[in-house]
């Protein structure tokens, strides 16, 4: 990987982050109907309280100055103060981010494994009955809203039978050792992670299948077949390796989707992560928290895309050499 390429990508990263932060400012602080403006304009305050609020949020300054104060706070890691929790937004986010990482991380890992495996199964028997049924099943699963899939799983595993816990991160009031705690969290994790996996593995298998089908018609695949290699070796060793690049790109794009799914799934299963935080802050109109969550989600997606760009360079020897 050349230094120049890295420098170019880093510049793009910084610019994108800057634009994202500014876009956030525009949404939450400038546009009519933005919460800060509404707060100070509400008719229920006496003049002294209003003046206090205006000063607290810096509304007495010009927009330009407000923007710079906002940027400065951002750089100091100050995302504002939650209306509901009465704590700094960073503290509120800090309590939720780990749980979301656990859920999204588990779901992503399983999604990639299952999705790629299904894609390989479909592509290696392209245009067969297996292929058609995998594709149609994937489309069907893809058409299900994440929250609806979650609700069905709640009926199956929590209402009709009582196999798995359907709400929260731990069983309330359960006192056990560390191992017992681990098992408890793992049991709570199963259904939300499974829900996210269902929908996204479907999407993933479609992407892997289509990429693989494109690779399978390349000349070197014919060579491999002519050498008398087994079909399984051809698909897993030769085709998949070449199909890896688009799959890596797809993973990066899919992070945005899985975060959107996490909001729905965490709401359905009361999983105390950032998705549930977004839901609650929408319901309770806790705009600083909503703003912080959105910013963090955007940064996560931008960072993932950056990493996938670099990974692309490492994985593809043709790009590396130039």
């Amino acid at each position, binding site marked *: 990987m050349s230094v120049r390429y890295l420098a170019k990508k880093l510049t793009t990263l910084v610019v994108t982050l800057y634009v*994202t932060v500014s876009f956030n400012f525009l949404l939450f602080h400038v546009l009519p*109907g933005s919460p800060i403006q509404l707060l100070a304009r509400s008719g229920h305050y006496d003049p002294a309280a209003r003046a206090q609020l205006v000063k607290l949020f810096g509304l007495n300054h010009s927009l330009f100055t407000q923007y710079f104060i906002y940027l400065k706070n951002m750089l100091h890691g100050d995302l504002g103060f939650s209306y509901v929790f009465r704590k700094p937004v960073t503290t509120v986010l800090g309590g939720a981010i780990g749980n979301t990482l656990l859920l999204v991380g588990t779901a992503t890992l399983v999604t990639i494994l299952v999705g790629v495996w299904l894609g390989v199964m479909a592509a290696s028997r392209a245009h067969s009955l297996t292929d058609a049924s995998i594709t149609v099943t994937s*489309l069907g699963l893809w058409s299900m*809203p994440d929250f609806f899939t979650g609700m*069905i799983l709640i009926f199956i595993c929590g*209402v009709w039978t009582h196999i798995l816990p359907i709400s929260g991160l731990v069983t309330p009031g359960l006192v056990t050792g560390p191992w017992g705690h681990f098992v408890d969290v793992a049991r709570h994790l199963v259904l939300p992670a499974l829900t996210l996996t269902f929908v996204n593995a479907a999407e993933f298998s479609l992407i892997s299948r289509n990429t693989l089908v494109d690779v399978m018609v390349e000349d070197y695949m014919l060579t491999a077949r002519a050498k008398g290699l087994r079909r399984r070796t051809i698909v897993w060793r030769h085709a998949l390796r070449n199909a890896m690049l688009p799959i890596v790109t797809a993973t990066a794009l899919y992070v*945005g989707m899985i975060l*959107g799914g996490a909001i729905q799934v965490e709401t359905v299963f009361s999983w105390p992560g950032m998705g549930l935080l977004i839901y609650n802050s929408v319901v309770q109109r806790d705009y600083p928290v909503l703003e912080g969550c*959105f910013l963090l989600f955007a940064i996560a997606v*931008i960072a993932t895309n950056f990493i996938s760009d670099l990974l692309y360079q490492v994985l593809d020897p043709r790009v590396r050499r130039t």
Partner: protein
Amino acid sequence: MSNLDDTAGELRDPEFDDVASRPHRGIWKSLWHDPMGRSGLIMLGFVLVVIMIGPLIFPFDAQSFGTSAASILQAPSRAHWMGTTELGQDVFRQFLVGGRISLYVGLSATLIAIVLGAGLGLISGYYAGWRDTVLMRITDFFLVLPTLPLIIVLAALFGQSILVTSLVIGLTSWPQTARIIRSQVLSLRERPLVQRVRSLGAGDLRIMRKHILPNVAPLIFANLALVLSGAVLAQAALAFLGLGDPVQVSWGTTLHNAFNSGAMSQGAWWYVMTPGVGIVVMVLAFSLVGHSLDRVLNPLLRGEQ
């Protein structure tokens, strides 16, 4: 004007105008011959008939509530085909009306997204140069922003009427369309016919309208079905999270009510499954048609089969 038309007609490049001159009936025909496309069209027809004609036969009265404890959360029966809600309302009748709202929001959001996406893609691809650079930077920025969180934020800030919902979904769903259309236009503008027409003095607008747009139209059409399925899903998620129009009850709103009223722990599966299956069938119909159109219009994939 008419002179130019005639000349352009004579200069028709057979390879170039392949897609445009193919009558649109041809696309419908190949769609119908593709198993995926056919099942999509049949499902779509079914959904449309149910939600357009259904409410006329089984009208829903939003003001009629159950009057006794026995009338709430009833299991499906002859009186209430799909049971009742926690307010004693008929789930099936609410389902028929709700489908209209889901489809209405999906369609208007898609219209906005397609006009924006296709328009920007067309300008970007046709003019290239600095306009292209600027527009594509903007597109890439919106492509990278997580869509559903953005839609949720916008809906939370700007309100919950179906108009706002359509606008919000439409204004966030265009980047992919812009990318796809741009890359097609980029290759079209280099084709001999466009160069010849331009040398005859045809203006940019005229070339775009008469020669580029008809050639990307099928692509826009295929993309439309996929954007539609995404828009219906986004609307459902918004409504489920309590950001739907509280007056105009869509399928997502019904699911929101079912979830928040605790109907699930009462085992009221009919309350959840009826609107949920509605969403799945509608989205599946659109995505089947979209994927099938993609296949039908992509000669490379077709040759392979």
